[in-house]
């Protein structure tokens, strides 16, 4: 199969770059997600991207003293892209991943590691969404 540059002429980059408005965030995680999506897609208003993030935490590496040494933030994001004028749905999808952080004795270090893991989860989910949009954009029109 013949590979074409995404941002080259006729590539799907033209269809998605500076065309999409991402839905407003309602949490810190979504704030970071919108920031990352706008960094990578630019901003526009021809398409509306709506998303729902379902997140859970998993306690791992529980040692014999019942101390939780590692925590996974698991995120599953389902998204819908709609054409602004007609409201027609042009693409839906679901992406999911996890980021982890280590707990330490200091609650401050643990909280800052948790927030860093939350930021990374937003970036990882956003990057997967961008990949899906690049793959699906050709069939939007």
């Amino acid at each position, binding site marked *: 199969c013949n590979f074409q540059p995404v941002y080259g002429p006729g590539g799907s980059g033209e269809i998605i770059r500076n065309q999409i408005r991402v839905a407003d965030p309602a949490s810190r995680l979504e704030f970071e997600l919108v920031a990352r999506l706008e960094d990578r897609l630019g901003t526009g208003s021809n398409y509306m991207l709506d998303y729902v993030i379902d997140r859970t935490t998993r306690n791992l590496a529980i040692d014999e003293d*019942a101390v939780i040494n590692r925590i996974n933030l698991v995120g599953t994001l389902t998204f819908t892209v709609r054409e602004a004028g007609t409201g027609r749905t042009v693409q839906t999808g679901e992406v999911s991943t996890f980021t982890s952080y280590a707990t330490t004795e200091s609650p*401050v270090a643990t909280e800052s590691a948790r927030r860093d893991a939350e930021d990374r989860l937003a970036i990882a989910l956003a990057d997967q969404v961008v990949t899906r949009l690049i793959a699906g954009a050709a069939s939007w029109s």
Partner: protein
Amino acid sequence: AQTTAPATLIADNIRFNGSTSVTARGAVEVFFEGSRLRAESITYDGSTDNLRVQGPLTLVDESGNAVFVADFAELSADLQNGVLQSARLVLDRQLQIAATEIVHTDGRYTQLYQAVASSCEVCFDHPTPLWEIRARRIIHDAEEQQLYFENAQFRVLGVPVFFLPRMRMPDPTLERATGFLAPSVSADDLTGTQLLVPYFIELGDHADITVTPWIGVGTQTVELRYRQAIRNGELEAEGAVSWDDLTNNATRAYLFADASFELPRAFTLDLQLQAVSDRGYLTTYGFNDPDTLESYARVSRVRRDEYVEASGTLYESLRDGVDNDTLPTRVAHAEITRRITPDLIGGTLTATLEGTGFYRYSTIDGDDGRDVFRVTGALDWRRSQTFGGLMATFEGALHGGVYNTQQDATFGSTVYRLTPYSAVELRYPMQATTATGVSHLIEPIAQLVWSNTFGDAPPNEDSFIVEFDEANLFSLDRLPGSDRRETGTRANIGLSYSRIAPGGWTVGVGAGVVLRREDEGQFTEGSGLNGLQSDFLMATHLSFSDQLSVANRSLFDSALNFTSSELSLAWSGDRHEVISTYTFLEADLGELRADPLAELAFDGEYALNSGWDAGLNFRYDFMDNEATRAGVTLGYRNECLDMEFSVSRRYTTSSTLEPATSFGLTVSLAGFGAGREGRSVSRSCRG
């Protein structure tokens, strides 16, 4: 006289004889204000205004929740009063009450004599239901949605189990009412064998309390939960008090409360309180047990281009052998982040300003007593531009901070620091789509980053352990907090490949490495980021429609020995569900981990046939070659019963904890009280 609406009667044939009586035959239906009677034949006597109904007849009340089935009945024309012979009452298509005679009055009260109530399906091949309640009389009050039993006898498989002179149960449509909830049994070699009987108390429409006494041998415990919904927020508090002789303090208790309120101008106030009397209490009694208690008040607002937060937090570590006085347990924090699109230079400018104070109770000079107050700010500007197929991103950032340190002579009382960054990132993604709609995407990425710090190092409170994954492979600074900055000149190189088949297999593989011009020794072995060349990062995501999803992230060096590898698997079908994780971290004293850590966690459930389901969960530590937790559950549910038996063993020990095995049994009958949370199964007689 009170005007009563006319009742409508439809039939194949109506005979009227004399002036007062009419006989309707053939698929007769009578409608009256929503209630509906269907029968073979009905004789209406005008003089007494009532109906004599020949069965088999069904009478459905206006709400549709109560259906009477009988062979013969005498009813008033408005169907609100009457006597039915050898009849059955079916409530909310779930609970069936058979009776020799049913007297229905005022469309509200129904008295059922010599009644048998059960929500189990009764078929020819097994006529005795799994459970039934026989009673001399059952009164159903449709308005209060309650069922009152007189001389009730509870039978399981036809065998009488217990007898109650008086009993009240909610009818299947009742959402919320004061009363007992489904009891459960738990046995544990620490807390003894206990019967948990939750009692729900409704406090108006917006608040309730659930009191759950543990009745049994060994320890005495009462659990409490209070919930309240307010116009612009909600509050929930749960707690428990126990008396036992496992530790030297006789009374042990915990309280977890949290509330959130909407404030004007789109702000939200979140409050949380977590307190416990002693460290081992939560784990011993099986309550959810965080490592650290966190009580805070936080005001925050999230908007498209702005995040604002101000919070005060009090921590208490429950870890064994940790002295809370030497930990920064009191933290005050405020931050504002704004994203702006500058007119002249374009791109996006992210400006952040934050102030934080850490306070330790202890006043010992040095690590144990240090208090720090800091104000830091950051400006991060980035702009992307495409050149043909190449996407180039230029980024510049400036991070500055002023730190004031008390009770730690090794750090100057006030320290200033400034860290500029600059970076260029190049991406050249290429895409191909096959005829069958499968699309492939290859993306090489290269980024060159320079940063340097000017000023003295402040105490490191928030940047102990660094993670390395595909999300921060191309970030300007991988340190989690702001007390330490990543410096030096480094090249981040990555290549990602994705294969996306909508509905079929979707694969994503990302690889990366960090090359540094000089090793500033900022990272520990365990992070994979140390040395001139970092470990190789490999992140793999694999999914097949929504049944299987596997994600792995590994760090390994060129000799293929692993620094860390984390795998997560979620696999579900219509009869099974499995969630499993494997975590391996090599030993790293920098991360206070003397020996490697390797753990497999597994949680699976399989639906056997005819309503049974079995579950297995365990957590296995490869280093100590033993399980830290293991458990088995066995559940049975059908249209009238929901039962779950579980046994689990916890092997963790500490000065306040010993290994413990606990059993659990919950049984809940369907048909009493609404809300079966989807565990209901409808079953019909086969053959």
